[in-house]
């Protein structure tokens, strides 16, 4: 009887230990789509290649957050390789990023495109980023940027 119980004890705890390892490896925070997973993630370079051949692509792309809206966390810039930045906003204003998320690796789910960023928006973004009036006034031309303007979910690692 003792032997059976000891065997049971070992099996139970080994399985719990194994489970704990898996949990540790998949520990992350999800914003937006609660069912979002890390499956099928592509790199920033792969996204750029995709958008060289098609107008838009539904993706999960990984990169490091370089800047977050300092007021509410309602947009972010993500480095997707080299000097390339992906501009991200969130579906229906339905979720935001932590204000201190810069430097964190993120996976963003949504429709990626190359979009025109208007002067009005760029000025607003510069205001959010706490730029000086001189810098804001110097924005006079729209820019082209990789963007996911309605991300459905974000995983922060």
């Amino acid at each position: 009887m003792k032997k059976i119980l000891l065997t049971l004890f070992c099996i139970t705890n080994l399985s719990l230990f194994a489970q704990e390892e898996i949990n540790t490896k998949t520990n992350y925070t999800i914003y937006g789509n609660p069912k979002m997973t890390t499956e099928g993630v592509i790199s920033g370079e792969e996204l750029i290649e995709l958008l060289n051949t098609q107008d838009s692509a539904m993706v999960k792309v990984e990169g490091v957050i370089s800047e977050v809206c300092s007021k509410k966390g309602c947009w972010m810039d993500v480095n997707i390789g080299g000097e390339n930045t992906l501009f991200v906003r969130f579906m229906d204003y339905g979720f935001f990023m932590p204000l201190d998320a810069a430097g964190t690796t993120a996976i963003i789910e949504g429709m990626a495109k190359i979009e025109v960023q208007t002067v009005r928006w760029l000025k607003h973004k510069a205001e959010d980023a706490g730029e000086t009036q001189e810098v804001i006034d110097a924005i006079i031309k729209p820019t082209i940027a990789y963007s996911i303007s309605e991300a459905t979910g974000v995983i922060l690692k």
Partner: protein
Amino acid sequence: MRLGLKILVLCIIAYSLFSYQRTTAQNKKESTNYPNKDSELAILMRDLVENTEKVKKQIINGEEIEFFIEFKKLHTAVPTEVNLRDDGLYTAFTESYIYSVKELINTKNDKATLYNNMIQSCINCHQQICPGPVKRIRKLKIKK
């Protein structure tokens, strides 16, 4: 059952429960879609969206419309940017919005048009002051 065996059984149960709790705690990571401290006005705006969604459905279904928002709070709720009201622009847009709500409440005719006018007044304000939610607000319009 002998005493030693009983103690062993109890130890197994206790240890297993402890391990389970530890595993669960590690797996659970706090997540909220709004992780930063929201201003009073930001929370009011979210309530306003919720209320407006209901009003939209009520109009589409031909039902009586119902606003539960205290509109005067738009003038007093603390915004994310403390100097929001300094240049008078926000106050002017707010008054225009409240006027469009009153028009909608008082009409017995084309509610959908007056509702869309009300939504447009939200868009006009946000385009000038806080363009982030403009896409979201556009979705509130009734398609004719």
